[in-house]
């Protein structure tokens, strides 16, 4: 599927926002991802989707971090360039048919670093469904804080945590969650694995469920190569196909990494 680059600009020193125009109808849920073919690189790269408008001539916005040669080259792709993408990959966050007991009316969205972007599309979806989400967003330092204003513009409570204390609550997101007055009843989270582990443990202590979006090196991104399989309570799961979102109950940490 061909997409045209509408925008590709830095948000911080290492995080960029790219907007692409093309057929986005395959994107059904927040938390699904796309596989972009970057000129000069063999394998596609997986990116979460910040937000999108589903249409044959729709738009999707990716917020990505430069982590290697591929994403560094991506920052130099000009507006107007054509990129090939596979869209609507993975399961995404489930917002409409979660178990009744966990049918949260005030779910907490917990994001870390470049794990924050897909929570924005999720937040919009939850608001459309009449829920009252809140967000806790964690970063290393003030310079790395992204999308705070975007979440605040949705009119939800936003707590920012930085590891060095240069903005918001000092510490990790799990520490910031402990400072919240509102009781925790359901969690949606995306971020680096140590953060997911901490949030998972927190959910365990509080007895609440949640959905966790994982990252893994992928070959194909659509379930063919088995490159990203991880072990879960219910057997091996392909992060690209049965994931990237796993529910609290099925996650096994000891065998990961």
């Amino acid at each position: 599927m061909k997409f045209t680059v509408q925008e590709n600009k830095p948000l911080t020193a290492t995080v960029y926002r790219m907007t692409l125009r093309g057929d986005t109808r395959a994107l059904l849920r927040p938390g699904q991802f796309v596989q972009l073919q970057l000129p000069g690189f063999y394998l596609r790269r997986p990116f979460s989707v910040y937000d999108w408008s589903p249409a044959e001539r729709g738009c999707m916005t990716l917020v990505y971090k430069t982590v290697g040669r591929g994403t560094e080259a991506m920052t130099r792709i000009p507006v107007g360039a054509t990129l090939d993408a596979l869209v609507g990959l993975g399961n995404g966050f489930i917002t409409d048919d979660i178990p009744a007991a966990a049918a949260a009316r005030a779910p907490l969205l917990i994001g870390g670093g470049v794990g924050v972007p897909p929570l924005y599309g999720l937040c919009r979806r939850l608001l459309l469904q009449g829920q009252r989400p809140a967000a806790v967003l964690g970063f290393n330092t003030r310079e790395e804080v992204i999308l705070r204003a975007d979440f605040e513009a949705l009119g939800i409570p936003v707590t920012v945590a930085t590891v060095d204390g240069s903005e918001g609550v000092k510490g990790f997101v799990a520490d910031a969650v402990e400072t919240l007055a509102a009781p925790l009843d359901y969690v949606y989270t995306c971020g680096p694995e140590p953060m997911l582990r901490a949030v998972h443990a927190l959910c365990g202590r509080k007895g609440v469920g949640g959905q966790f979006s994982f990252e893994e090196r992928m070959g194909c991104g659509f379930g063919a190569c088995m490159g990203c399989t991880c072990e879960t309570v219910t057997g091996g799961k392909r992060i690209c196909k049965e994931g990237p979102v796993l529910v609290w109950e099925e996650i096994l940490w000891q065998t990961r990494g």
Partner: protein
Amino acid sequence: MADTRVTLSGITLDNPVIPASGTFGFGQEFQDYYDINVLGTFSFKGTTREPRLGNPTPRIAETACGMLNAVGLQNPGVEHVISHELAELATFFHKPVMANVNGFSIEEYAYVAQRLARQPQVGWLEVNVSCPNVHGGGMAFGLAPESAAAVTRAVRAVTDKPLYIKLSPNVTDIVSIARACEDAGADGLCLINTLLGMRIDLRTRKPLLANRTGGLSGPAVFPVALRMVYQVSQAVRVPVIGMGGVASACDVVEMMLAGATAVQVGAQNLVNPCACREIIEDLPRVMERYNIQTLRDITGGAWK
């Protein structure tokens, strides 16, 4: 009208394009992108007796013009493959399929081969003695003529179905191994499996793959594969299925000129899920450009 048909051990394929094992699952994921009945056939995910989760992640690393994988034969085990994957496949794929057989002992190869050979959908067995990502099995059997021949003999003893042995390029003399398999009763040979390689992360100073090493595939390996197909196909009387970095209809023609009777496409399926459909659509145009009426006639056209 371009004739793209080829024949492998008495079974005629509409075209020589065969997705390679390990890059095509059991077909399901690709059926979402195109009707896979356009394929000559495909080789399904390498199957062992017991279910295997495979190696720890990361299992994938990119390279220049290619990729490394160290999946390690993840599969649900032969009984599940028969009861679930092949049953499901029968609902949407209506051609004989190639069964990729793996083992950690000669007995296991024979057992898995016998179970899969009994399935009516299975047209050919492709016995993989060349997986570089498992220990104590796979490639261990494909590194010497004697052990490769022993696996071939054991599988030959349990089935009359066409038997192809998939060879490793990680050897000093692939021709001697190919000949040993032919002498032991193989009906054909498939080559090449991936080349053993590695990448190191500059930040952590550790190998990128959890398994440390992995198999290199993609266009980077095409010339190596082509050379080996050229050598082996001239040294044996049985058909050779050529594979390794094939990414276009031109590559298919080139591989056949080197001596391949049919051609497998591997890593390219992972980069472009429609790769095989596009190659098949392109073949008649490429044949016309190079004045080829009957594709099967060009096999070995580059010999001498």
